[in-house]
């Protein structure tokens, strides 16, 4: 019987056809949620949008901000509340319409509308106006030196196209709306949409009139994007040559992919730090000595070697290395020292330890549950009896955000590449529009004031000094227990030259072939 199956399988199969060098078949775990460029603020959605749409600015593969549709940008000397952008001339949308300042004004206003998930990034913008056809002024409420950091995923649409297709307002996903832009695109990007079947397959082809052709001479003429959820299947698809590049290679398969002829793994530090949060306000962990004891009881090197198979970058601060404010001194983590930790525990009056529950996601970060399991053992060494409660992210995040947990795991990416983003969400007192991810109970009025002052400080040296000061307080208080920065791995065919981008967004115009 088996032979029968084998024979029929053989009869049906033809030799695997080698794809032409120009087609890139790309797979990752999840699909984009919508093609409307302002409707969602989420990794896979932006990653797909980046192939078809451009922002005024973009991040290169090292994370640095470089020109895109804007060629020059600066805050006005006479009025620091206004950012002036000089636009690139001669750019056309996929349908042939010309790109000018009218489209920029339209797109930025569109991204501020109700329903847009990009609105928080533009919250300080009070007005956007066209100075001439290729100059745009953006005025903020008070000076905002951070503004340009928020524009790299802020995509430009054609005003005429949006009006003609009734998509002047962004798709409001939370209200259950779809619109023409959900499944259709008209951007200025390097690739144009050919077809799309949600959760199944999206096909793009090269834009023959792309403005960046000379800057990024890629040979990619077609992209076939398939989400493949099961990591074993995704790796199998790469090993069998059915796809050319995959994101999210599981750490246990890295060796196998790298050892396969004709395949390679490209690695880079990710803009995401993993850490434990602890209750700073109540219970035994409100004592800073206990938090310090827990911090030096974490054996970060062991987590890296055993749990992460060397695919992580241990750290002593909850800040990835790309972020403004990062220093190697902050990144230094204390030596694993059980005796010192026990002494601190005894000092705090907990020589006999105490009980604690660790809340952990099990489907969000690389090996999240395994890291937590390791931590349970490490905390046990200093007498803290930890019960592990690992749940899917859909339960974990609401649970910790509502302040139910005393000890939890969280990861944080910093899309603005500035410390302010960490302070504002993780360290500002929880309440109003700030501190929404700070259930630690940490609340320091001086720190809060300094965080707010960062938003309008235009003297960059003074601003950096304030950032350093906040970190000093936060590190002294040991508000969180940092673990490591994640490492990104992309598996791909050996003939591809492509750097891993720290935001996990492949921008295929940068891809070349050997």
């Amino acid at each position, binding site marked *: 019987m088996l032979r029968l199956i084998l024979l029929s399988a053989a009869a049906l199969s033809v030799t*695997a056809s080698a794809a032409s060098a120009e087609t890139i078949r790309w797979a990752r775990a999840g699909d984009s949620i919508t093609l409307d460029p302002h409707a969602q603020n989420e990794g896979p959605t932006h990653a797909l949008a980046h192939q078809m749409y451009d922002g005024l600015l973009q991040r290169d593969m090292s994370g640095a901000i470089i020109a895109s549709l804007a060629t020059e940008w600066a805050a006005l000397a006479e009025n620091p509340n206004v950012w002036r952008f000089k636009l690139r001339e001669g750019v056309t949308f996929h349908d042939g319409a010309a790109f000018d300042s009218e489209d920029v004004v339209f797109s930025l206003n569109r991204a501020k509308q109700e329903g847009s998930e990009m609105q928080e990034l533009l919250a300080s913008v009070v007005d956007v106006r066209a100075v001439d056809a290729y100059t745009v002024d953006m005025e903020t409420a008070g000076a905002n030196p951070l503004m340009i950091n928020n524009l790299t995923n802020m995509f430009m649409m054609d005003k005429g196209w949006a009006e003609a297709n009734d998509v002047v307002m962004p798709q409001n996903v*939370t209200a259950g709306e779809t619109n023409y832009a959900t499944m259709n695109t008209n951007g200025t990007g390097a690739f144009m949409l050919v077809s799309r079947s949600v959760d199944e397959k999206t096909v793009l082809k090269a834009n023959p009139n792309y403005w960046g052709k000379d800057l990024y001479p890629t040979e990619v003429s077609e992209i076939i994007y398939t989400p493949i959820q099961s990591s074993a*299947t995704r790796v*199998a698809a790469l090993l069998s040559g*059915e796809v050319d590049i995959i994101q999210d290679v599981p750490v246990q398969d890295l060796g196998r992919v790298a050892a396969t002829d004709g395949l390679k793994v490209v690695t880079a530090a990710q803009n995401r730090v993993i850490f434990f949060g602890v209750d700073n306000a109540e219970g035994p962990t409100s004592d800073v000595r206990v938090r310090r004891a827990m911090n030096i009881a974490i054996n970060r090197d062991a987590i890296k070697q055993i749990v992460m198979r060397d695919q992580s970058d241990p750290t002593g601060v909850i800040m990835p290395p790309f972020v403004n404010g990062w220093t190697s001194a902050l990144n230094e983590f204390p030596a694993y020292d059980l005796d010192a930790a026990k002494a601190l525990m005894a000092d705090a009056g907990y020589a006999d330890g105490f009980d604690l529950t660790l809340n952990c996601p099990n489907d969000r970060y690389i090996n999240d549950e395994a890291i937590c399991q390791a931590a349970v053992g490490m905390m046990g060494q200093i007498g803290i009896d930890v019960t592990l409660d690992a749940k*899917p992210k*859909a339960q974990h995040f609401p649970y910790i955000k509502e302040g139910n947990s005393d000890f939890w795991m969280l990861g944080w990416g910093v899309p603005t590449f500035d410390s302010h983003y960490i302070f504002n969400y993780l360290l500002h007192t929880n309440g109003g*529009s700030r501190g929404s991810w700070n259930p630690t109970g940490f609340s320091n009025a001086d720190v809060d004031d300094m965080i707010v002052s960062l938003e309008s400080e235009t003297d960059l040296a003074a601003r950096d000094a304030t950032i350093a000061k906040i970190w000093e307080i936060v590190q002294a208080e040991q508000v969180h227990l940092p673990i490591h920065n994640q490492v990104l791995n992309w598996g791909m065919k050996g003939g591809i030259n492509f750097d891993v981008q720290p935001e996990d967004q492949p921008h295929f115009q940068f891809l070349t072939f050997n």
Partner: protein
Amino acid sequence: MLLIILRRLGQSFLVLFLVAFVSFMIFRYVGNPVDNLLGQEATNDRRDALIEALGLNDPLHVQYLSFVGRALQFDFGISYRTAQPVADMIIQRLPATLELALVSAIFAMFVGVVAGVYTAINRRGFIANSILSSSLIGVSLPTFLIGVLLIWVFSVELKWLPSFGRGDVVDLGFWTTGFLTVSGLKSLILPGITLGLYQMTLIMRLTRAEMLEVLRQDYIKFARARGLQDRTVYFGHALKNTLVPVITIAGLQLGSIVAFAIITETVFQWPGVGLMFINAVYFVDIPVMSAYLLLVGTLFVLINLIVDLLYLVIDPRLRDGQLKRTGG
């Protein structure tokens, strides 16, 4: 007779209401979708407003009744994740699942009956015993492992068959089919075997047992005594009588093939309703989850209803109410 049919229909509706209710109870523990919907920068105010707008703060019975009310009008709501109407999403993905289920059912039925008959006839043969013992592996290995093993052998090592997806499909307007292209047919083989393997072993063992039973009957002995050829005895007389219970079981198993396609679809990234359901669970996409569970519930209820009604047609004693049915 009419009364019995009406009673059965009433029972079916009751079961569906219960299915919807139990699924609603479960959703309370799946999590909260707002953090998936809003992204990490959202303020607490917008978060609270969305929870209110989605009605997630409403008491359970209010959420349940509003869902049932809309479902009765064939309105299954709008997906939280994709913002598409759930009914459209199901209609779009159903062809993939049904084609996969059909291939698996044919595979299970055909291979199961052939292997069952073979092992019944050659009871002491080496091949028959090997088939029987290897079928134990088929029953005891979990589906995802079988899928991964098949991918390993046929996609990664031999590179004969695709490891994921449906291949090229032809859009007929109301239906997308993979039956009309070479890559579509190739893509069906591995998931079809994975999904049908358990049913195949079940049907094989059932066919074998029934066949052995029938072969002991007097009329088979008489047939042999009449000097009929083995072929005619086995296939003309024995097999026919074997198939009645086999077909009943196979029909009932069809529902499970559709319902349990979830794991196979996840392993092979098969774009059907099962994969849609798994995505919905990860995202806490409550409208999609409830519609899917209701769909599967309806499928099982329909199959059972048809079987019940067929029994009435076949067995006159049930019709007249002379025989109290025991069990079900």
